[in-house]
């Protein structure tokens, strides 16, 4: 069906993990408990929710666009993957080193789980980038 795309199983596993993570993040923020949306929340939580909404919009766009790029414009898939990897790493570094005084994630079970599994998605994306980059180099 998709001639020319011969990626290893580990790539597909990494991609599935990334998709699973993104969908759980979307689900976690879409089903936030009512008490977290209280206007009396701390300023940090309000800011975090505002920032998370914008990030999740970008994630949704990436979830839709990535398969299109992978199957239709495979030549550019490595650049898109590297860009997404660097974005995931950047926002992780931002949250834990740069915006540490401003951002405070709500204390909800699923959100905490999503936060804890962020390094796993970064590793998955790094693997995908490596495979796409070095695979295309060996093919040339």
């Amino acid at each position, binding site marked *: 069906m998709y001639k020319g795309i011969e990626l290893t199983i580990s790539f597909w596993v990494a991609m599935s993990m990334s998709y699973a993570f993104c969908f759980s993040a979307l689900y976690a923020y879409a089903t936030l408990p009512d008490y977290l949306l209280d206007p009396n929340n701390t300023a940090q939580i309000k*800011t975090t929710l*505002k*920032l998370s909404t*914008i990030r999740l919009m970008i994630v949704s766009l990436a979830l839709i666009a990535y398969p299109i790029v992978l199957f239709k414009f495979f030549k550019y898939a490595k*650049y898109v993957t*590297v*860009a997404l990897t*660097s*974005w995931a790493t*950047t*926002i992780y*570094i*931002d949250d834990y*080193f*740069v*915006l*540490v*005084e*401003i951002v405070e994630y709500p204390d909800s079970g699923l959100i905490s789980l999503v936060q804890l599994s962020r390094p796993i998605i970064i590793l998955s994306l790094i693997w995908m980038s490596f495979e796409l*980059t070095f695979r295309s180099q060996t093919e040339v």
Partner: protein
Amino acid sequence: MNEKDTKNLEFATIFGNTPSSQSKGKDHIVQSSTFRLILSFINLYALITIALFFLIKGNLVAGVNTNFLDKEGFWHILNSRAIILLVLLVFLNASAYCNYGFKYACLVLIVYMLNSAIDNAVLFSGFMHLTDRPYLSAFTITRPLFIISLFWVMIIHKYKFKSD
């Protein structure tokens, strides 16, 4: 190669007019002048931004009120961002010098700049207006120019000789 050809090649070499196929012995690629110009602009822009921040931070510019930096952790954020930008700039120049992974270094810097622009717009739009501090706003307004330059330099960068 006959004697006439050998002599022509000798003269061409002396006058620096050697055909490119014969000068491939020097194993480096000469980038276009546009590339060098844009890369210089990127370096200059980033270094002036970083230098300006550290000058303001160190109270070395007279007449600038630095109290606003203490608000809502703005100081810490700008400081961290300046250091990260400096590190990424070093990587960009190193990859340009070694001619390895330059496009990826550009891509990472573009993503970083876009992300920090979004973050700043979301977090600080409430208490900081563009007209408040023109010396900082100048860099915020011209940031798209920096990102466009990075895109441009990424596109025109050459990894190989065209004939290869």
